[in-house]
């Protein structure tokens, strides 16, 4: 009885403090309020579902050729029309989501892993390690990114796997620099000094304290990087340096459609639209995440 009476007498400020949400919950609340970010997330989820359930959703297989219906305009039977082999473009666009999302996600994951490792080493150990790694990043950033990707694929040979490797490599310096600057600021925090003072190992400090405290900008940058990676993969596919036929990669589909521009423009309209929508989705979601997770970037 006495306790409840005391609780009622507490000043309102104290009660508010008890309800303070975690930074992640606060970010989620802010993200939910951002309509554009929700639209972006909706688009991304839509394409992820398309990719997962492609065999159930696609009306036809990716390589079902019917020469009798080649280059047909969009109709009730073929919503997006057919290509020069009589293949259903809608089905190929749906399956194409698998390739684009796969390349985009895995390339960016590769860049994050290598970039974070290098960035942590540079930021935490400093001195010559920092100078060496930072100079390598500077040199890589001196190339226009798509050009570096083209150079890497030109060396390794054109294939979807090599395109993925090239895209992963060109994005490494972006993550490396980001994590390096985070490590530089986090390592000066008092709790890191305390961890060092009690004799905690470097690896434990790095992976248990510094890395988790640098996650927010990595998530933001990662989401935006997937958008760029999807465009880069499509660009390599378009130049004939990425996916090979008969893969329904969107960039490759556009390259094949180029020669039928006059008689069958739909062959190039829909794959391009799919690239643009997916990239737009990731961009909107990334912008929303940045506003929610990185208060300094709030517009």
């Amino acid at each position, binding site marked *: 009885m006495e306790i409840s009476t005391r609780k009622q007498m507490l000043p309102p400020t104290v009660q508010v403090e008890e309800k303070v949400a975690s930074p992640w919950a606060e970010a989620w609340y802010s993200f939910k309020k951002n309509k554009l970010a929700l639209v972006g997330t909706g688009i991304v989820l839509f394409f992820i579902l398309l990719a997962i359930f492609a065999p159930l959703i696609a009306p036809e297989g990716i390589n079902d050729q019917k020469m009798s219906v080649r280059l047909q305009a969009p109709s009730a039977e073929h919503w997006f029309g057919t290509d020069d082999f009589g293949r259903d473009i809608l089905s190929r666009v749906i399956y194409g989501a698998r390739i684009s999302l796969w390349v985009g996600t895995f390339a960016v994951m590769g860049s994050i892993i290598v970039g974070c490792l290098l960035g942590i080493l540079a930021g935490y150990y400093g001195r010559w390690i920092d100078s060496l790694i930072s*100079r*390598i990043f*500077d*040199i*890589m950033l*001196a*190339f*226009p*990114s*798509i*050009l570096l990707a*083209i*150079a890497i694929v*030109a*060396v*390794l*040979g054109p294939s979807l796997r090599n395109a993925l490797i090239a895209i992963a490599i060109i994005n490494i310096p972006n993550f490396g620099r980001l994590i390096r600057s985070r490590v530089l600021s986090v390592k000066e925090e008092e709790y890191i000094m305390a961890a060092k003072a009690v004799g905690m190992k470097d690896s434990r400090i790095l992976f248990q304290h510094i890395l988790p405290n640098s996650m927010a900008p990595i998530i933001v940058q990662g989401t935006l990087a997937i*958008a760029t990676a999807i*465009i880069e993969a*499509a*660009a390599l596919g*378009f*130049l*004939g*340096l990425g996916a090979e036929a008969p893969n329904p990669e969107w*960039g490759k589909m*556009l390259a094949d*459609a*180029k020669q039928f*521009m*006059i008689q069958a*423009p739909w062959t*190039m*309209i829909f*794959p*391009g639209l799919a*690239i*643009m*929508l997916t*990239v*737009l989705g990731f*961009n*909107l979601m990334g912008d929303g995440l940045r506003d929610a997770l990185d208060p300094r970037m709030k*517009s």
Partner: protein
Amino acid sequence: MFAYSVRRILSLVPVLLGLSLIVFFMIRAIPGDPAQVILGQLATKEAIADLTKQLGLDQAWYIQYFNYLGDLLTGDLGQSLRTKSDINNEIWPYLAATMELSFVAMLVAIVIGVNAGIISAWFQNSWFDYAAMVLALIGVSMPIFWLGLMEQWMFAINLDWLPTSGREEVRNPVEAITNFYIIDTLIQGRTDQLVEVMKHLVLPAMALATIPMAIIARITRSTMLEVMRSDFIRTARAKGLSMFWVVYKHSLKNAVIPVLTIIGLQTGLLLGGAILTETIFSWPGIGRYIYEAINYRDYPVIQSGILIIALLFVLINLVVDLLYAAIDPRIKYR
């Protein structure tokens, strides 16, 4: 300013050395025997040995690198395996074509992007603001190779307003002097050719300009909004200065630094995007030169083309950095 410029130029030395190292190792990183890969499976042993010698691959790598560096410093880019001619002789027209296209694209992006950003900030939350920002959002997400194809389909094929590809009217070719066709036609007083050259420029320049234009518009809008809320702008307005004067004289001057940064960064995107745009529009620029070289496995040309573009990118960023320091004196003391 002089000390800052020297420091900034000196900082380029390791970057340039790194660039040359990456480009040098490109050919050496080819899995297997590079000469065999270049010549194909049917090549004879003699041909492979000859090419190995021509590329200098039979020497120790550090000797190869120093020879390569020496050649670069004397302006020798090597020989094309396909055309057998010196690359430094044949690269200039391609480079000039790319520079002309990129310059026009950047100009379009700056003029439209900055003004769209200013008007959006000026009339914040108006229909223009919303429309411009939605378009900018779509613009950033647009693959330029798709946009290029759509432009070709719409304006060249369907409406027949502009030429589909190339840099000049084939039946009325421009006599090259500087290889910048706008300048060449002006020098020769050939307005008929100038009109043709401009017509050929419109579609590829618009395709190339879209992404930088969208980004510049977004950045200009947000920086202008920030500047327009500052005290000195309020004072200028209170003194009775017209909104036009306040925006274009006071606000823009203070918003120019972030916009300049973006312009510097976007140049890289522009040069990278040129390879795609040039492929679509058969624009005889360095991007197309590299693209064709890739198809013929002409590695010396690929190396030189990539090196030249990277060098151009580095130099443009240097100019942008020096411009900042000239505009904002605080930067050189950082």
